[in-house]
């Protein structure tokens, strides 16, 4: 008698894993998972910071030693190369962001608002380039920059970065403009604006949350980028990510110095992210 009754009772309740938890248990489990994921991501950073604070003799015993020092930072910051690289990375990230936003805003707007052969061709071009793996661009770009005599200069790194940004971010920009009601621009055109005026004075200001999000993404992308910087620059234009890697050389691996440089590189990125994350979230939600 009781067996069918039990079967019925089980069938009536949702048989999921969460239903087995006590009330509120779902929330606890979620919190624990979130903490675990955060730890997983935070641990390497924590290890990096720890290593940067240890003397050269202690880097292989980071977890054991008790000796801490700021000498690594002193030493790294006294390298002219590192300072120069820091400046270059900052300048190139900022310039690439400004240039990219100028182009992606107009290109995204065109993709969103206009139909016809030119937007179609542009759309296809971006699409084709997007399909090419990022790594595959590097070698051709090396030869192109050599030919154009811009190898190992700002332009030699800026232009490839802007090109990548255009291909990746025009789509996101198109999405932002798709979310903005075009009748606002029509109203502006009736109110005395040209088509350009309507774009600059009405559509663009409305896209500011999206533009901010994109600016942050662009900046971080270039700041963190390694491959282009490695291949397309040499001694004239040192870039921080490349300089950082050069602490591994034929005479050994200076983990402490590398970590110190990495921590220095982390700071601007951290500031940008903390300042910008609400814009990124708001912008990408459009």
């Amino acid at each position, binding site marked *: 008698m009781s067996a069918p009754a039990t079967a019925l009772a089980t069938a009536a309740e949702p048989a999921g894993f969460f239903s087995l938890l006590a009330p509120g248990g779902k929330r606890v489990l979620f919190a624990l998972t979130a903490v675990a994921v955060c730890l997983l991501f935070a641990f390497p950073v924590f290890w990096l910071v720890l290593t940067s604070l240890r003397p050269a003799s202690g880097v292989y015993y980071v977890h054991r030693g008790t000796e801490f020092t700021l000498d690594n930072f002193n030493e790294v910051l006294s390298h002219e190369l590192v300072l120069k690289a820091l400046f270059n990375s900052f300048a190139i990230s900022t310039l690439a962001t400004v240039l990219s936003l100028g182009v992606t805003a107009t290109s995204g707007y065109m993709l969103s608002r206009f139909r016809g052969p030119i937007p179609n061709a542009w759309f296809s071009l971006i699409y084709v380039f997007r399909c090419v793996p990022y790594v595959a661009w590097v070698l051709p770009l090396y030869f192109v920059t050599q030919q154009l005599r811009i190898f190992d200069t700002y332009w030699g790194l800026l232009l490839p970065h802007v090109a990548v940004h255009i291909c990746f971010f025009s789509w996101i920009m198109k999405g932002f403009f798709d979310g903005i009601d075009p*009748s606002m621009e029509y*109203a502006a*055109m009736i109110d005395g*604006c040209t088509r350009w005026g309507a774009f600059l004075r009405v559509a663009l*200001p409305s896209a500011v949350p999206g533009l901010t999000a994109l600016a942050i993404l662009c900046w971080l992308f270039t700041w963190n980028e390694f491959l282009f910087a490695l291949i397309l620059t040499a001694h004239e234009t040192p870039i921080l990510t490349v300089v950082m890697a050069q602490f591994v050389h034929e005479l050994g691996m200076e983990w402490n110095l590398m970590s110190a440089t990495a921590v220095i590189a982390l700071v601007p990125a951290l500031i940008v992210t903390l300042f910008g994350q609400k814009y990124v979230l708001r912008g990408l939600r459009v």
Partner: protein
Amino acid sequence: MAEVALINVQKSYGHVPAVRDITLEIKDREFVVLVGPSGCGKSTTLRMIAGLEEISAGRILIGGRVVNHLAPRDRDIAMVFQNYALYQHMSVRDNLAFGLRNRKVPESEIDAAIARAARILSIEPLLDRRPRQLSGGQQQRVALGRCIVRNPKVFLFDEPLSNLDAQLRAQMRLELKELRQRVQTTSVFVTHDQVEAMTLGDRIVVMKDGVVQQVGTPLELYRKPANRFVASFIGSPSMNFMMLNVAAADGRFSLTGEDFRFEIPAAAAPSLGPRVGGSVCVGMRPQHIRLGKPAGDHQIGFTGTLLVTEQLGDEQLLAVRVGKSEIRIAGVDPDLTLASGTQIEAAVSTDNLHFFDGA
């Protein structure tokens, strides 16, 4: 202040025609409503007047000047959009001032114009707010204000009330009507709502599939619809239609349906003459049908089975099956209790019959 003329205007997208050959003259200070179902070309026509759509053929004149190739900003028009299209990143005041600043109007004049418009529309307390802080009705007023401050030759309205809820829509309709008395500007108003068309328009243009069906005053359209489409579109509930065969005998026309027959004195419907031996679509408005037997020669009667009743409080609407057709009757005494399936006798005056071609 200006008249607007459309002369043989056409618009097609590729090979798909959106507006086929529309010719329309709108007089100075006249309020014309373009009405029709979605996709009938009414909005496209408005956008062509605004200059937001190129015209494929024909000419558009505003104030006697051909504007075919003029940019929207040079046409001296103002437009209210369905979703208001307020500049979200500006305050209400800046929204109102935008058009004037573009035209390099001195700030003192701009302030005066804004003050006047704000007074007319009672939006003075809202001037420093952002559009997103306003309700739908308030946003619509600001959009109207943006038109008024410019003092343009023509106002264009693209379904400005359709985003509002029913109650607010009725209120804004009244406000628009009042506004018209204070600000008399030539206006073109697009809507798919026949009530808006009837209440607001000096004249109404009914469109379907890119073709103008009829142009006339609200009463002309209601009383003398040019074809079956206009007849069914204007008036609520919609006009009833029956396909009947026409025969003539002894100075009378007889109209025969499935299992019933009317007789009309020939003098009452001279338009039936050429249709003898064929069929005709007879239309009658639900409001013109009365319950009971026909009284006298000028009324015709018919019998049907009651399907359902709709109680509206001050009247009842009946749906009655007569032969194959379903006939709606309006204005029935709300206290009358009628059960479904009851046989209903009804009559309508021959003056209130409309005759149309085809199915």
